[in-house]
């Protein structure tokens, strides 16, 4: 069991955990700023960017993918503005049209091109390919100390580890800025904080996390990683510091339980096949949110609207 676990399950599980944590951390602030759907928007726009970057460079390396995603985000912003102005329709509708159109374009391009040499096809783009990120050279726990085997770890692990570490560092360094500007933007501006840059930085960080998590859970299910763990955490505590810690706990729990249930769950019910790990991770995070809604000690406060005075 141990050797097999290290070879087939350790790296996918680690990648799942790191991806979930990298997304959940910025997700906390997106939710408190009532911008949760920005995660959704990012996940849609990222796909065509990644696909085009792959077509241009021929690899699935991190930097071209990020640049592609950034380019796609820029195109999305311009398109939204153009549709809003030329069509004279409300911003929400313009966004809805832009995101789905760009996403659909990404799927179409992906389908029509030969990407068989790498793990990039429609199914993986939508749902990730966690199960295939296995560590071929591993022979057991001892391989963790074997340089040759370590060198053969899937590239995706290093990539998501770097991104997750970056997100953690940014979160710690800019903690006060994020907290003050999220709670009271007017006050933040009055004391001289660069609130526009903070907001953009948060969205950019979320976008980087989304691109990195693309390997693990695909471009759509990543939205669950942004929203479910922080939303569940918000229901468990009334302190921001504790909320962020709980969101990490829930993210790790979702990734581990989701992976295990996907791989072994069907066997317990007598089925022969495993189910999608990414799908199961998202489903577990949804169940955790549901449980938090039912039993969380601070559930009553969420959904209470702002007090309208004046």
């Amino acid at each position, binding site marked *: 069991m141990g050797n097999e676990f290290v070879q087939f399950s350790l790296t996918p599980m680690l990648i799942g955990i790191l991806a979930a944590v990298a997304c959940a951390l910025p997700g906390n602030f997106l939710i*408190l700023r009532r911008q949760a759907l920005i995660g959704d928007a990012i996940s849609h726009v990222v796909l065509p960017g990644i696909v085009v970057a792959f077509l241009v460079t021929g690899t699935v390396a991190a930097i071209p993918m990020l640049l592609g995603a950034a380019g796609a985000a820029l195109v999305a912003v311009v398109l939204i503005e153009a549709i809003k102005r030329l069509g004279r329709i409300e911003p929400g509708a313009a966004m809805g049209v832009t995101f789905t159109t760009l996403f659909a374009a990404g799927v179409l391009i992906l389908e029509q091109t030969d990407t068989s040499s790498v793990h990039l096809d429609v199914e993986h783009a939508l749902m990730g390919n966690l199960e295939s990120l296995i560590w071929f050279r591993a022979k057991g726990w001892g391989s963790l100390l074997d340089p040759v085997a370590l060198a053969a770890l899937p590239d995706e692990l290093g990539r998501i580890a770097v991104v997750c570490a970056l997100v953690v560092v940014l979160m710690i*360094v*800019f903690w*006060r*800025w994020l*907290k*003050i500007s*999220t*709670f*009271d933007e*007017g*006050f933040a*501006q*009055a*004391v*001289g*904080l660069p609130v526009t840059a903070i907001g953009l930085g948060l969205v950019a960080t979320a976008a980087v996390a989304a691109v990195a998590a693309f390997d693990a859970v695909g471009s759509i299910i990543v939205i669950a990683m942004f929203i479910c763990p922080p939303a569940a955490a*918000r229901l468990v*505590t*009334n*302190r*921001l510091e*504790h*909320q962020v810690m709980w969101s990490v706990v829930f993210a790790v729990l979702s990734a581990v339980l989701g992976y295990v249930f996907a791989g072994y769950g069907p066997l317990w019910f007598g089925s022969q096949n495993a189910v999608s790990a990414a799908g199961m991770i998202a489903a577990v995070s949804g169940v955790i949110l549901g449980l938090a809604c039912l039993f969380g000690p601070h559930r009553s*406060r*969420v959904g*209470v609207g*702002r*007090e*309208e*005075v*004046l």
Partner: protein
Amino acid sequence: MTRPTETPITLAATEGRVTPRAAIPADAPLVLRGLTVSYGEKPAVFSVDATFAPEAMTAIIGPNGAGKSTMLKAALGVIPRLSGEVAVFGQPIDVARDRIAYVPQRASVDWDFPTTVIDVVLMGLYRRVGLLGRLTGAHLSRARDCLDRVGMGDFAARQIGQLSGGQQQRVFLARALAQDADLYLLDEPFAGVDAATERAIIDVLKALKAQKKAVVCVHHDLATVASYFDEVFLINVRRIAQGPVAETFTAENLHATYGGRLATTHLDQLDLAQG
């Protein structure tokens, strides 16, 4: 020393092309020159000049939509201004931010935010502590002291959503006290608060004035202008009048500010100056 307000206008003035404006007094806590703000095509605040007095409490009054809050926010850079100059103690605002404390409207923030009363007050120490500085015991006792001054000392560990409107307003005031500024700008501090809170807030503000601080409040209750404030600034998109309450808070100026919206019976109940 170069003049702090060297702009194309003043430069043109030195060349004799336009009439020069009076130099900005260095001791004035807040000076606005030609402040114009627009949300759409119509200006919300148009070409407002104002000079707020030191060691005094000033009320900014005017009808709804007259640009009272907008003027304050634009002066602070919370919303962009279309044109105009702002000087704080004779300096550009970005140099003088340490000397300003700002209390936004209570309804402008989400009180469901997961944080505690003492945490909100500690935000007032941000400019002292910095992005990565450590919060020390001295900071904490300072924040507690500020809470005591507004009568909220027993609520330090409360989640802010559990407070009443008046208590929330007092916490905001405590955060401003923690900033230890020389100029206090408050946006509707008495809106929707209970009588005890109103009393507590006015006592704190009067104590600030006694410490030679300047206090400027956006205010909506004409009945309390005369008893609370020394100076008054009347605005309805444009500046209507500014001066000591005893001279400026007149029926004539109120009519000019509010138009037909003030009933004569209402005016009779106010403690008006004889203009």
